[in-house]
């Protein structure tokens, strides 16, 4: 038996363990779930050590003697004080530094998510699609304007926004079903081709 087939059999065993939850909760499912968490964490830890700690901490400080990097390293270590009740305030400093990137992204995110989107919503209404987008945008925005009661003609108008959202939710639901079925297809393709047919090939030629 080749190593590839053996590893596929291990994968198939854990796939079936996870699927067994569909019948009911059981120890095989729980074991697989906990193994997944443990292996992912262990893998990330080793990779982070190799790709972050060594090139960005050990090599610059201990091999290249870039001593200035000790300061951000110490600030980074302050994260660990989260676990101390007396010194947990120190962990706010690295958090404050990391928040800088959030600040830096505000202006650009406004451009991407608001200004460009708004500009594209203000194009001349030349076809039925653009008309629908125009009506949808206005009515949905008004639906979330709560300073005026949704009654009378105004209420009926903003109700159109609710219908637009319903269509949106329906599309999202359809796509979600598609996504979940795709994941199942992926697993079954693995079981059928990489395990069942490979076993058949290995033992019966």
């Amino acid at each position, binding site marked *: 038996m080749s190593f590839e087939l053996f590893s596929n059999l291990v994968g198939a065993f854990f796939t079936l363990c996870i699927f067994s939850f*569909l*019948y009911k909760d059981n120890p095989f499912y729980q074991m697989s779930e906990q193994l997944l968490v443990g292996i*992912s964490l262990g*893998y*990330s830890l080793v*990779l*982070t050590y190799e*790709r*972050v700690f060594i*090139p*960005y901490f050990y090599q610059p400080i201990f091999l290249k003697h870039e001593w200035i990097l000790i300061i951000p390293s110490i600030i980074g270590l302050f994260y660990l004080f989260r676990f101390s009740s007396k010194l947990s305030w120190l962990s706010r400093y690295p958090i404050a530094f*990391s928040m800088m*990137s959030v600040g*830096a*992204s505000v202006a*650009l*995110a406004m*451009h*991407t998510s608001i200004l*460009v*989107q708004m*500009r*594209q919503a203000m194009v001349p209404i030349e076809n039925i699609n653009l008309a629908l*987008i125009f009506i949808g945008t206005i009515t949905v925005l008004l639906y979330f304007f709560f300073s005026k009661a949704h009654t009378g003609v105004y209420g009926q108008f903003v109700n159109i926004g609710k219908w637009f959202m319903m269509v*949106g939710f329906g*599309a*999202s639901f359809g*796509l*979600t*079903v*598609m*996504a979940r*079925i*795709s*994941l*199942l*297809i*992926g*697993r*079954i*393709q693995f079981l*059928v*081709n990489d395990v069942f047919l490979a076993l058949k090939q290995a033992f019966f030629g």
Partner: protein
Amino acid sequence: MAEKKSFFVWMQSLDRRWIYLVVALAIIIPLLIPYNSDNVTTPPTENVYQMVDSFAGREDRAVLLSFYHDASVMPELYPMQIAIIRHCFERNIKVFFLSFLPTGAPIIDMAINTVKEEYPNIKSGVDYCNFGYIPAALIVPTVIGMGDNIATAVPTDAEGRKTENLPIMKGITNYNEMNLVIEFSGSTAGAYWLIYARPKFGTNIAVGVTAVMAADEYPYLQTGQYIGLLCGLKGAAEYEKLVDVFAAYRTPGEPLQPYIDENGNKIVPGRAFSKDILKQPEIKDLIKITTQTEAKFTPEEFELFLKSCPEKDQPLLQLAKQTVEGNIIIDVSKLDQDQLSPITWDTLNRLTRNTQYKFKVARVGMNAQSVAHIIMIIFIILGNIGYFLQKAQTTKK
């Protein structure tokens, strides 16, 4: 009427495990018995394909693929990655890879190796470059830094080689050359590229997302901030089809690999995207997902093909040919691979249009997807009828 009612009421109380079983069978059966179904391509996928294809054979253009996901969403994203990498290798397009997630790095290796098996001439550092895992804390400096100089922002590749010394970097400095970023993700696809790279450097962004996330990404596509979008398994199946119809297409006699013609021009085999070609009835022969073993030629094409083969193979091919309805057909399953030279064998197999399983995974999956969707729709309709009948019955009581 009473009988029908009781059926729907029975449906309402049906144990959900029976439904799981029916859905599982609806998926397993089409996978075990594949059939040839068409897959209509949509503009968001075609736009990504055309943009990637516009870089074919160019020294001064490259694509960056960002794997921002782990194994949990691989069934949807992996086939599209394989299809895009295959497109790049077929059409001699420089391609870079990176992942901001530790668990994304091995998926890059797996994807490259899966496609590379069929392209022995493709070399790391020359035709592609894998930057590997870049810590998430460095996303912003990396995305912005690459706008200035890629080799400075990512000094080494995943194998520890200096980026600036790699042959692939010849003609590539920043986003002016690496002008297309495609991010694959099951969550916030393209967000960093859209915020930091596009407004500042004008980088073209495309995304490959799970179907769940597609609804969130469409507004950015509609406003032109994304040049294209691949939506789940369907997007992957569309891209696979486009690669088979255009990038991997070879006419008899055409070399399989890129070559330099007598005038010194680099010629990249395959053909450019065209809507008209997609409408041709012959396309059905190029996109079959069932196993194909027959290479079909017109007499003129066969002559051209023979001329391109080594002399020692020509008598064997003459013996193996069959004439059916004025066309010449060679069945590769009746030939001995060891008797033919590798180039003839590869070309002949290419001309059978028999796509390898790994390059049609999404299309095979879409067969099962179609059946499963029909079953789901039936369940939803039956469930709703049952619900309203039960409601009416309760009101009556």
